[in-house]
């Protein structure tokens, strides 16, 4: 996605950033408004629609019973997929996921996996034979920038809203019960993405900013404030100062977002149990 205008836009965005400003009136370290709605897809075991400013992503969780990976016989399986469907942007094309969608899914997946958000050992039913397999499927509905964070919040919120049937094992047979329970949650990872342009890094790049940035840096932190996943993407370079600054902000903002958006979802599950 590149056009002649972007050089002009780039200058404009740098000029604003030099004054600590952004085109939509935000500060450099300010997120767009976040809105999370869970449980809107009844056919899915869990679901969430997230809007981050004008960006919208929906995540659905489907749970199946299947075989574990041979090297991890005592653990359930979680897998992320992302679809950049053509209804979400004039630049998306129909067809199997291309590298942008694959990178997006893998970075969201890493954030959830490395923070051990879901206790996968508790999703083992019969070791080596039967485990819960969780499919986290993300559909981008409206791309107005920063799909990484919007998708990560959608995946985390959908997992928090997921209810799976209780199971009973009799003579090696698994029986699904009518009663349902929420997933065993251990952590709440929060993803934060920065754009770098000129000498500046700014939080939560919107579409106009994404078109002119040199590169992006996504940092996922867990509830202890540890860093669990990082991805620099696109073609530019970062300085050590950029990284140190981004880490500080990611830890601080991560805590805020966890408290404000994910903790209430976690608490509301306790009532559902």
């Amino acid at each position, binding site marked *: 996605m590149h056009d002649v205008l972007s050089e002009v836009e780039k200058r404009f965005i740098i000029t604003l950033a030099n004054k600590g400003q952004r085109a939509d009136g935000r500060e450099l370290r300010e997120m767009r408004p976040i809105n999370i709605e869970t449980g809107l897809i009844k056919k899915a075991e869990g679901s969430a629609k997230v809007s981050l400013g004008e960006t919208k992503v929906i995540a659905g969780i489907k749970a199946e019973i299947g075989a574990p990976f041979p090297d991890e016989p005592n653990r359930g399986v979680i897998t992320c997929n992302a679809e950049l469907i053509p209804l979400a942007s004039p630049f998306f094309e129909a067809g199997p996921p291309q*590298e942008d969608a*694959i990178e997006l899914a893998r970075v969201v997946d890493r954030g959830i996996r*490395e923070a051990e958000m879901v206790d996968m050992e508790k999703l083992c039913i019969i070791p080596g034979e039967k485990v819960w397999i969780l499919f986290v499927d993300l559909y981008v509905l409206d791309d107005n920038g920063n799909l990484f964070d919007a998708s990560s919040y959608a995946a985390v919120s959908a997992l928090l809203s997921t209810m799976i049937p209780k199971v009973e094992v009799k003579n090696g047979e698994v029986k699904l019960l009518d009663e349902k329970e929420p997933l065993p949650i251990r952590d709440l990872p929060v993803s934060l993405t920065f754009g770098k342009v000129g000498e500046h890094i700014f939080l939560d790049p919107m579409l106009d900013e994404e078109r002119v940035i040199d590169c992006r840096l996504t940092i996922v932190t867990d509830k202890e404030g540890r860093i669990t996943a990082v991805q620099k*993407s696109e*073609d530019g*370079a970062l300085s050590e100062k950029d990284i140190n600054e981004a880490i500080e902000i990611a830890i601080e903002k991560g805590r805020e977002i966890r408290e404000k958006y994910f903790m209430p979802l976690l608490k509301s599950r306790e009532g559902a149990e």
Partner: protein
Amino acid sequence: MDLSSKYSQGDLLRDGVRIDGRGVRELRPIKLEVGVLSRADGSAYIEQGNNKILVAVYGPRELHPKHLARPDTAILQCFYRMATFSVEERKNPAPSRRELELSKVIKGALAPAIFLRNFPRSTIDVYIQVLQADGGTRCASITAASLALADAGVPMRDLVTACAVGKVNGQLVLDPNDIEDKLGEADMPVAIMPRKRFITLLQMDGRMNKEEFIEAYKMAIEGCMEIYKLQRQALMERYMAVRKEFEEEGGGEDA
């Protein structure tokens, strides 16, 4: 047979000595060769521990399909592929999601070093073939790819050098091998343009607190600076050899 299942985490580090006998800040032995393929415009080969990787560069050349061409700059295309026999269990020859993601981040690591705007409407293609893998292949690929680009005569701001840092038993270790990567607690690949220490690749998975994270990437940069010396040496060797050939032929057409 997966080697990592033979070992446990406790084997990884004993009295500061790693499973392959290295110290915590020690690189694996590295062998670099430039100009190893005849048809490619530029090429390089790297062995880093048991990794064996070949890189070819073609271009700047005409781009197909043409609609991908950009009016103001060349595009860079990277293809990171593992041979089916490069890992313990045969890899499916179709490119995996991992290979596609790595191709993308490797492109992002190399692009800042290249004067792509000198070649509008064209492409520079980097083909990376991993022949044998032993942890840290993306970093070794970047190190070799930047040599192959230099060998192709592509104008560059700097070389790109990459090195990973891992975490085993709570201890940061430089240039982790496959077992350390699989059994370890974290892995952080880093690529830099060494002259200005710009960071062009940064990934991490696992768990690190803020202090560890900062120490880890500083350690990775130190590793890169060591590898950078070897890269320069490999380029010099290549061009000394070319010069010698030239002189032996009687100094070329002008003489």
